C-alpha cells in the first residue's frame, strides 16, 4: 500500500521534483551557453593578441622579424589571466619568434583565422592561427602567427559564470519551497483547527462540526462527517430510548409482583410460605434496583428522557437534599448517616437530575455494604478549582487491586455477600465524566471502609 504522506509533504514533493529537474536541465543549458560565450570572448582576446603581433611583423632586407620589445613579449607570457604561448613562422615555415614546440594547424587550410585545440606540454590549449602578409601589398608571402592559452582558464571562467547564473535559481527554488510550506500551513489552518476540535471532543458529543471557516475543498468532507454524526446520534438515541422504554415497561409488572408479594407476606400464616415469600421479595427488590440502574445509566449516557441541560448548581444544597432523602433508608439499616458541607462556595455547572442520581448511587452502595451500626458520611469541600464530593463509609472496604474494576459494569467486589448488580459505580463514573470531573476510590481513614471522592469543576 502506498504510504500516505501529509498534504504539505506531497505538495512540496510535487513542486520540488519538477523544479529540481528543470534546474538541472537549465544548468546543463546554461553551462553550454556560458562556455560558448566564454569561448567567444577568449577567442577574440587571443585574436587581438595575434593581430597585435601581426601588426608588428616587419620585413626588412628579406629579413622577417617581430618588432616587439622583449618586455612586451614577456608580458604576454605572464599575464594575469594565464600564460600565453605564441609562435611566429615565416612564409617558408621558418622560425621567427616564440615557442618552437607549438604544433602546426591540424590541416592545411589557408583561412586567415583559424581556431583549434591542441595538446601542448601535456596540457590542453586553445590556439588561434592568423595569417598575416609579411609586407602588406608586397606579395612576399604570409607569416603564420599562433597564439594559444590553456583551456582551463576558460573552464574556470565558464564555471564562475555558471555559478552566477545557477545560484540565484537555487535560492529561488529554496524560497519557493519555503513559500509553499508556509502557504500550505496557512491554507490548512482551518483543517488543523478542525482536527483540534475533533480531538478535544468527548465521545458523547455528537453535535455537528463547524463548517463555516473550512476551505471549500474540505466542506464536502465535513458535511459527510456531520451526516455520519447525525445518523450515529440517531442510532444511539434509538438504542438509549429502547433501554429506557424497556426499563419503563418492566416497572409496571414488577410493581405488580412487589405488591402481590407484600400482600401475601401479610396474609400468609404458614412459616414455610413466609420463607419463600421473603426470598421472592429479595429477588423482586434486586430486579427493581437493576431496572432503575439500567434506566439511570441509559439516562446518563444520553439525555434521552429529559435532555441534558447544565445549569448553575449549589452542590451543598443538592447533596444535603439527596442525603436527607436517604436518611430513612439508612436508619432502617441502623446506619448513622451524616452530612458535612459549607453553606456556600460549592457552585458547579451541572444537570441536577444526574448529580442527584450519582450521589444516590454512591449512598445506595455505602448504605448497602456497611454493616448495621456503621457510619456513612457525605462531605462537600470546595477547593481552589474543584468541588470535592465524598462519601465515606465504615463498611468492609474494597481491596486496592479491585478499586479500578468496581467502576466496570456488572462488576461486584467478591466476598461481600450483598445483593447488588454492580451498575452503581459505572453510573457514577458515567455522570462524573459527563460533568468533566474525576472519581476515585480510596481506603477510609484509619484503614476502615471506603471513601469515594468525586471532584467536579467549580463554577466561576
Amino acid at each position, binding site marked *: 500500500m502506498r504510504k500516505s504522506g501529509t498534504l504539505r509533504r506531497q505538495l512540496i514533493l510535487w513542486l520540488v521534483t519538477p523544479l529540481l529537474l528543470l534546474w538541472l536541465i537549465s544548468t546543463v543549458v546554461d553551462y553550454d551557453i556560458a562556455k560558448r560565450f566564454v569561448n567567444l570572448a577568449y577567442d577574440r582576446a587571443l585574436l587581438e593578441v595575434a593581430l597585435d603581433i601581426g601588426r608588428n611583423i616587419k620585413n626588412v632586407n628579406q629579413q622577417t622579424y617581430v618588432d616587439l620589445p622583449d618586455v612586451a613579449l614577456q608580458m604576454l607570457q605572464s599575464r594575469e589571466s594565464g600564460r600565453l604561448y605564441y609562435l611566429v613562422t615565416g612564409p617558408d615555415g621558418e622560425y621567427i619568434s616564440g615557442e618552437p614546440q607549438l604544433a602546426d594547424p591540424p590541416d592545411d587550410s589557408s583561412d586567415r583565422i583559424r581556431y583549434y585545440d591542441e595538446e601542448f606540454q601535456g596540457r590542453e590549449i586553445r590556439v588561434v592561427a592568423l595569417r598575416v602578409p609579411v609586407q602588406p601589398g608586397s606579395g612576399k608571402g604570409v607569416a603564420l602567427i599562433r597564439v594559444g592559452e590553456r583551456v582551463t582558464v576558460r573552464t574556470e571562467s565558464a564555471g564562475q559564470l555558471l555559478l552566477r547564473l545557477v545560484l540565484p535559481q537555487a535560492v529561488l527554488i529554496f524560497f519557493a519551497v519555503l513559500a509553499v510550506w508556509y502557504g500550505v500551513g496557512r491554507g490548512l489552518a482551518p483543517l488543523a483547527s478542525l482536527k483540534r476540535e475533533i480531538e478535544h471532543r468527548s465521545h458523547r458529543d455528537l453535535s455537528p462540526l463547524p463548517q463555516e471557516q473550512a476551505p471549500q475543498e474540505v466542506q464536502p468532507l465535513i458535511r459527510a462527517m456531520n451526516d455520519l454524526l447525525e445518523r450515529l446520534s440517531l442510532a444511539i438515541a434509538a438504542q438509549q430510548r429502547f433501554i429506557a422504554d424497556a426499563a419503563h415497561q418492566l416497572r*409496571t409488572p414488577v410493581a405488580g409482583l412487589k405488591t402481590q408479594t407484600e400482600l401475601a407476606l401479610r396474609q400468609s400464616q404458614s412459616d414455610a410460605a413466609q420463607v419463600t415469600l421473603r426470598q421472592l421479595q429479595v429477588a423482586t427488590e434486586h430486579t427493581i434496583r437493576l431496572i432503575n440502574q439500567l434506566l439511570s445509566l441509559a439516562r446518563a449516557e444520553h439525555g434521552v428522557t*429529559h435532555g441534558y441541560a447544565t445549569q448553575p448548581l449549589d452542590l451543598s444544597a443538592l447533596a444535603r437534599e439527596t442525603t*436527607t432523602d436517604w436518611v430513612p433508608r439508612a*436508619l432502617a439499616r441502623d446506619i448513622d448517616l451524616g*452530612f458535612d458541607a459549607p453553606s456556600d462556595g460549592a457552585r458547579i455547572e451541572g444537570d441536577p437530575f444526574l448529580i442527584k442520581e450519582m450521589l444516590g448511587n454512591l449512598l445506595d452502595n455505602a448504605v448497602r455494604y456497611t454493616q448495621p451500626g456503621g457510619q456513612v458520611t457525605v462531605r462537600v469541600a470546595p477547593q481552589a478549582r474543584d468541588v470535592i464530593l465524598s462519601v465515606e463509609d465504615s463498611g468492609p472496604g474494597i481491596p486496592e487491586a479491585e478499586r479500578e474494576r468496581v467502576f466496570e459494569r456488572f462488576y461486584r467486589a467478591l466476598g461481600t455477600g450483598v445483593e447488588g448488580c454492580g451498575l452503581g459505580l459505572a453510573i457514577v463514573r458515567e455522570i462524573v465524566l459527563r460533568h468533566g470531573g474525576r472519581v476515585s476510590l480510596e481506603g477510609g481513614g484509619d484503614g476502615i471502609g471506603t471513601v469515594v471522592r468525586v471532584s467536579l469543576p467549580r463554577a466561576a
Partner: protein
Amino acid sequence: MRILIVEDDPVLADGLTRSLRAADYAVDCANDGAAADHVLAAQHYDLMILDLGLPKLDGFEVLRRLRRRGSRVPVLVLTARDALDDRVKGLDLGADDYLTKPFDLPELEARVRALIRRGQSGGASVLTHGALALDTAGRRATLNGEPIELSARELGVLEVLMLRSGRVVNKEQLAEQLYGWDEEVGANAIEVYVHRLRRKLEPAGVTIRTIRGLGYLLEKSPHA
C-alpha cells in the same frame, strides 16, 4: 370510603384492590382510560388511584376531564416514568400526589390515608405517634392519655417533628417555626429544646434521632 383504581396491569390492579379492601375501603377497578372516565361521571369516589399509561384514554386525559367537570376528588397518580416533567404535568393538571412504580405497599397506604383525610374538610387536629398524641388546636400533648408538661416552644418543636414523622427536619425549619422572620435564630436554643423533649419522651419509647449535619428525625414508631 370508596376508591377507584385505574390501572391496566391486572396483577398490580388486583394487588392494590385486595390490599385496600383489607383496609376496609370499598374499591372499584377500571382497566382503561375510557372506562374510568365513564365510571367517574356516574359515581362519587373519595379517592382515585390513576395510572398514567393507559389504553384508550391516557391518564392525563382522564384527569383533565375529571377536573373539567369540576370534581375535587383527590387523585394519586402512579407512573412508570420518573422524569420530572411527568410529575409536574400531573400535578399541574390537578393530581394531588404521585408515586413512581414500583412502590412500597405501606407507602401507598399511607398516601391513601393522607389524601382521604385531606379530602374530608376539617380533618382531625390531633397528631398521634404511637403512645404520643398532640392536639394542635388545644396545644396539649399526652402520653398514653396522660398529659405531659411541655413549654410552648417544646410543643412547637414536637409539632414540626410529628408533622414530618419519619423524615428529617433541619434546624432552620425548626427555627422558622419557633421564631418570627426577624428574630435571631439560635441553633443552640433548638438543641436545648430537643434535649428537653428527649428527656420527657424517651421513657415512653419515643425517639428523636440526631442526624449528623442535617437535623432531627422523629423515628417511626413500629405501629404508626
